[in-house]
């Protein structure tokens, strides 16, 4: 019987300790200090994620492939164009069999360019598109 009482007492202590641990430490301190707790509305709104689309399969090699470098015109026509020229120079030195085509997208960075996407799909095997920022 005493053994059962001891067990019940220990269980109660453990439950009390668990219940106290459930409060965030700061909140528990504040509560202990007697400060009133306030309930407020959440200003944030749940965001909805979009459906996932897979990437296109990758290439085994870039040897002999046609690679488009597309300037989206972020920051103006001079902002990133020479980066693409430098990338072209790197390919010339390192993978000379790759054919590099530099293209400027229609309009500003936010305009779609279906004609260019069609051309790349027909004639290219890979594309680098940028440079935002």
């Amino acid at each position, binding site marked *: 019987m005493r053994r059962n009482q001891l067990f019940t007492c220990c269980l109660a202590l453990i439950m009390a300790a668990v219940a106290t641990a459930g409060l965030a430490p*700061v*909140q528990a301190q*504040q509560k202990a200090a007697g*400060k*009133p*707790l*306030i*309930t*407020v*509305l*959440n*200003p*944030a*709104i*749940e*965001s*909805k*994620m*979009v*459906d*996932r*689309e*897979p*990437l*296109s*399969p*990758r*290439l085994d*090699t*870039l040897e002999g492939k046609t690679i488009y470098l597309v300037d989206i*015109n*972020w*920051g*103006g*026509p*001079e*902002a*990133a164009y*020479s*980066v693409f*020229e*430098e990338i072209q*120079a790197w390919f010339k030195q*390192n*993978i000379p069999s790759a054919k590099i085509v530099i293209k*400027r997208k*229609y*309009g*500003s960075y936010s305009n779609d360019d279906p004609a260019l*996407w069609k051309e*790349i*799909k027909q004639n290219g*095997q*890979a594309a*680098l*598109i*940028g*440079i*935002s*920022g």
Partner: protein
Amino acid sequence: MGIPTVGAAAANIVHYAIGYDFEYTNGMPIRYVGFPFPVAGQPKSVHHSYVFEREDVVSGKPMMQAIVDGFTKPLTEKEKFQGRPPEAVAEPRLLEPDTEDNLQQLFKDKDWTDYNPIILPTEERVAAMLKGTSRKPDEVVKKITWPGGARNLTVEKVAVCAVMAGAKPQHFPLILALATYVPFGNSTSSMANMILVNGPIRNEVKMNYKGNVMGPHNEVNSVLGRSFTLMSKTAGNLHAGKTTFSSLGSNLQYNNLCIAENEEALPAGWDPVHVQMGAKPTDSVLTVSTGWSYISSVGEVQRGYPPQFLMRDYMRSLSGMGASVIMDPAVAGLLKDSQGFNTKADLAKWLAENVEKTIASFWGNGVVSTMWASMALQGLEPHASRMKAPPDSMIKPFQPRGIGVIVTGGGQTTWFVTDFGVGRGVKIDDWR
């Protein structure tokens, strides 16, 4: 496109592209490489080093190794996945109860404030705010699609922000009208916004349009402007480094140039802005414009150099994408009586015809170049002709309809020229 594609972004924005943009807007785990920032405006030698000597900021690999890997490394399981993503983190209507100090800190930790203290949105305060409109709390004011996430901004969420900003229920229709613009204009170019209020509601809620109107001297001008920022940061989800990427930012984003027109002091023939845009004088209208800056007349008009000349001089420094002149009624009266501008449109027409700048200066503006230079290279007019013109030849960059005229304040012959283009507003009365 159906072929291996790699995206390229600068370091300031690439983590947005592979994180937030992927999850909430794009859905495709595009392989990005990250160039050092900035790319634009750097000489060819720097671009050479970015390609040949620097690392991709995403992978840490040499830049060209990262690009080649992007085209050739086999896809991971995550990159092959198609279908529904895991559910986004749920946002409960109520936050966990806590002390006032802790909640004030929580709102700052979440970046939900402008880092000034807020009024905590208790259920009682929000319920009181909702009495300022006949609209239902769960009615959707706007589905926010930028930046991604398709968030439904409800009347209740607007009320939460209105409370946080310190507004009263009688201000709520104004804030609901403002909510239709959330999030505010924001870009890497350190953009700002201007809120203009016209119509009878200015007097009803006692906005200040008679003196020191752009300063911190009126409750409604203050809380209305502030509420735009709070809504943009909470419902709009605009957070520095996560969804906004300005370098300098804009101090104007604290109050968003919240002003009301002094319609009562307009010279005869000068219509209020909302009437110019087709509304009735008895309509109450709120208009939000985006821009960057304003230039002050710095003191009173000088008799020897009429104000339109100095306005013209200052406007030469603006991009040409839009402008407005904010002036004291005394300036408006002077322009009408002494200079013969019988309407606002007369002044806008004169400025459009007389503001000139060099072609080099015109294209020297980064936003102008971003938006129009590529069109010029593709032969689209009038941009193509402007691109072909000699750098030191002159251009008239403004159209009369692109120049707004706002009359506010009272008592001094001072004015500001701004690059905020004034468009059509929304009717506040619809939100009562």
